[in-house]
């Protein structure tokens, strides 16, 4: 009974995080992006600096009509947002925010593989949406999504493998237990490659060719309205949470910090995640969208060699220090 209660509590907590953190990041994006462009951003909803803007957006989405195009494949069209969103909920289960069993949704032995595998499944949602919409722009968006995923899955996996090699385990809490501060310079290249590849996999600017609104009018999501569209947006921001959390755990030492007692590890995790989320927004504001061939070139000629170099470096150092 106690076990069941424990599991239920953890699931509930993860669910709450899943529902609130993406909204917080979305609101931060509204405000940070506005100020980086010399604007103020939302100021009215909720009274104080537009804090309730996304809640108002949600209400608006919920009121909209749920339209399925006449030529669309109805069932796949309707299923796609769930396929896009749920994997991130599962991934959140595996990310530890503090030391010990109590601070992670569920300890998974092959944590890295679980996380990367399930994140890859999320892209299926975009593919399904792109194909089932019966819209050529959506189809183009789906194609671009698939090409992007294929190009960036490899460097992501390789750099994650580098960390796993360094730690000697593929379990996320295990990696954090083995973390030392000098891993930071040691794995810095891998960290950057992982972060960039993750951004590309989330289709965040500057890697947002699949949803390029000015070229292919939001790609796979062209035909979506109302709640289903909101689910896709939520998936994107949940993806940011997951990516930043993962980068924190794998490369930035998670709950380890220069100061702070044992009980405050989760503060460090959240702080690092928040800083990374800010960087995600910052990159979005700063850089223009890459062209499709530039995107492929970046992955194959820069990120993959860099990640291979990182693996080689990790292996050499690992052998030397043993």
């Amino acid at each position, binding site marked *: 009974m106690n076990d069941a209660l424990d599991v239920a509590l953890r*699931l509930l907590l993860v669910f709450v995080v899943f529902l609130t953190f993406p909204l917080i990041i979305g609101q931060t994006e509204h405000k940070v992006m506005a100020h980086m462009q010399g604007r103020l951003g939302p100021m009215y909803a909720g009274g104080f600096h537009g804090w309730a803007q996304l809640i108002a957006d949600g209400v608006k989405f919920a009121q909209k009509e749920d339209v399925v195009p006449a030529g669309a494949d109805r069932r796949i069209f309707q299923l796609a947002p769930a396929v896009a969103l749920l994997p991130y909920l599962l991934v959140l*289960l595996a990310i530890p925010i503090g030391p010990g069993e109590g601070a992670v949704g569920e300890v*998974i032995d092959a944590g890295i593989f679980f996380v990367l*595998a399930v994140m890859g499944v999320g*892209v*299926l949602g975009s593919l399904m949406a792109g194909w089932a919409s019966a819209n050529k722009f959506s189809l183009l968006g789906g194609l671009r999504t*698939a090409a992007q995923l294929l190009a960036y899955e490899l460097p992501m*996996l390789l750099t994650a493998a580098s960390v796993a090699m360094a730690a000697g385990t593929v379990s996320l809490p295990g990696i954090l237990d083995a973390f030392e501060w000098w891993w930071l310079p040691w794995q810095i290249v891998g960290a950057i490659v992982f972060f960039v590849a993750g951004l590309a996999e989330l289709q965040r600017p500057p890697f947002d060719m699949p949803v390029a609104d000015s070229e292919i009018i939001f790609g796979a999501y062209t035909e979506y309205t109302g709640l289903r569209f909101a689910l896709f947006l939520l998936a994107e921001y949940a993806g940011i949470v997951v990516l930043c959390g993962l980068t924190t755990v794998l490369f930035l030492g998670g709950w380890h910090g220069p100061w702070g007692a044992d009980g405050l590890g989760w503060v460090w995790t959240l702080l690092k995640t928040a800083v990374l989320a800010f960087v995600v927004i910052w990159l979005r504001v700063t850089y223009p969208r890459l062209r499709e*061939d530039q995107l492929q070139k970046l992955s194959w000629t820069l990120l993959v060699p860099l990640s291979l170099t990182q693996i080689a470096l990790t292996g050499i150092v690992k052998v030397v220090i043993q």
Partner: protein
Amino acid sequence: MSLAAAAVAAATTTTPPALAAVETRGFLSPTGVEIAFLLVGLVTFGAAIVTVTTRQLVHAALWLVVALGGLAVEYLLLTAEFIAWVQVLIYVGSVVVLLLFGLMLTKAPIGRSPDADSGNRWAALTVAVAAAAALVWVVVDAFRTTWIDLDGPAAGSTKATGESLFQNWVLPFEALSVLLLTALVGAIVLSRKTKTESSSPSVNSRGATGSSSSVPDSRNHPIGRKGQAEQEGAR
């Protein structure tokens, strides 16, 4: 604990499955895990059948996702966590995405494709049944008396898999990787050959622009240029 973790993660049930006692070994007194195994197996089997019988191409690919996912759950129930996640990662995450990419490129229609049926349906069925029979026979014969102890340390954990792979099975592993490498090199050779034949008139222009690596990819043939860059990278 790891089994509970996996099951919870896979099915998002709020109650951990009952870890049954392993003393009662027999098909007639099934435990909870065995029932789950059978049910998931049925779902996987059904999805696989639909995959090969449906007339809608993309639906077939998506049913393949269900079948492969069901297979991953079966691995989980057999405590082979690492294999399960690699299965999801490689097959669902990459192979099916590649498949869908191909289907989209060929403009797979929404709805039934009348020409999605093969003429040699019976021959295919025969081969499939024969292969299935052989595999089932081999597996049953090999592991008939092998039982997984659910209470002890996981028999299929990453550590166990790694040790077994790199201590007992290193040679097959390396042979397989050489085989894959050969396939990779072969694919590159094949694609290069057809490419030089088809685009022989543009050799000069390519030589002119391809000499400096800092020049961005040429605008007129991004795909061909990219392919060449990849091949050079792989070489």
